[in-house]
């Protein structure tokens, strides 16, 4: 019996979040996990721009993470739109809805800096993605996912995190290099 992991990806439509969104989708796909897309809206009636933005972000993901034989719709996504200030709402959400891993956009990491320790405490683990300078002009290399993971700041990740990723056989060769570099 397998239990589906839940990842949470907080984002703000005010920032350029498409790269980290795509990475979060890719992680969810590789872990066969559910991805909660968390943000806040000033009013319940003003959520349409958020949904439009998420759809656009998914187009970016499709464009930049080509898959062979994998339906991109396999990523289970669930938008969570709360009200109020993002950091407060996020911490409150985590307290009431535990998740396995929170993936943090580099631009958002400054906003969430004060609450990061709380976010780490209230979640199973946190991945703060590295800053990506400039929009990539071409699809990333096959190693991009792991390059970003290698440069990310990792907090309290579940012990079986890499084991789960290791089931992604296509990544085997890169994982070998990754473990060698980090001398685990």
């Amino acid at each position: 019996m397998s239990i589906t992991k839940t990842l949470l990806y907080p984002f703000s439509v005010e920032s350029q979040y498409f790269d980290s969104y795509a990475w979060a989708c890719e992680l969810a796909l590789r872990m066969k996990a559910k991805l909660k897309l968390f943000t806040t809206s000033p009013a319940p009636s003003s959520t349409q721009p958020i949904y439009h933005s998420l759809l656009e972000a998914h187009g970016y993901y499709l464009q930049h993470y080509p898959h062979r034989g994998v339906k991109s719709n396999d990523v289970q996504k669930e938008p969570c739109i709360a009200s109020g200030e993002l950091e407060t709402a996020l911490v409150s959400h985590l307290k009431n809805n535990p998740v396995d891993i929170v993936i943090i956009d580099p631009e958002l990491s400054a906003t969430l800096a004060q609450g990061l320790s709380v976010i780490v405490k209230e979640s199973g683990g946190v991945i703060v993605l590295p800053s990506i300078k400039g929009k990539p002009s071409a699809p990333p290399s096959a190693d991009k996912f792991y390059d970003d993971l290698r440069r990310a700041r990792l907090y309290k990740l579940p012990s079986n995190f890499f084991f789960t990723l290791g089931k992604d056989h296509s990544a085997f060769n890169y994982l070998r290099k990754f473990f060698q570099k980090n001398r685990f």
Partner: protein
Amino acid sequence: MSIRSLSAATDEELVAAIREGDRLALGELYNRYYKKVFNKCFSFTKKQEEAFDLAQEALMKAFDNIHSFKGESSFSTWLYTITHRHCLATLKKNGRFQFHSLEANSYRDDDQPDGTPAAEETSDRAEQELIMYSLINALPDKERHLLKLKYLQGESVESLQTQLNISGSAVKMRLKRSREKLNMLYALALTYGLEQVLGRIELFTAG
């Protein structure tokens, strides 16, 4: 395909480029339509979160099966047909939409892959169903409820008479007026466009 020529390319040229593995072309074509697909889904659900779910599923269906687009209709027609069928299939699955008069000749939703020529051929019908469904949803509560009781749940006039506590002739009269109103709205929508009619629905449904 260069970025400059991307924006000038027709949808069909982009489809051809996507088939050759051009990811920029995929991004361009996707960006042309994702909002329209969302809006179409929203016209079904009236709920943004559900529209988002349906839109992303429909977009994925289309782009994952883009190789099956035969070019027998425009790309937009093909995409909207997939969207429409997906919305209908989901709503039917969830028990939220079933209208007998539209069911009689309905195509099969699940046993034929989207994007086949058959899907393209159903575009006119799909558009008609979309219009009809949107109009039923826009009717005042009483009329919408009555039509659904009669045609969705198959209630008899006698049963409606009891439920609504009115005479049989009153039930028949209300049904007749509701059908007539729906027919009128349908004709208006075909003539002036669905959005125009929905935008002025109070003018047509008052009284």
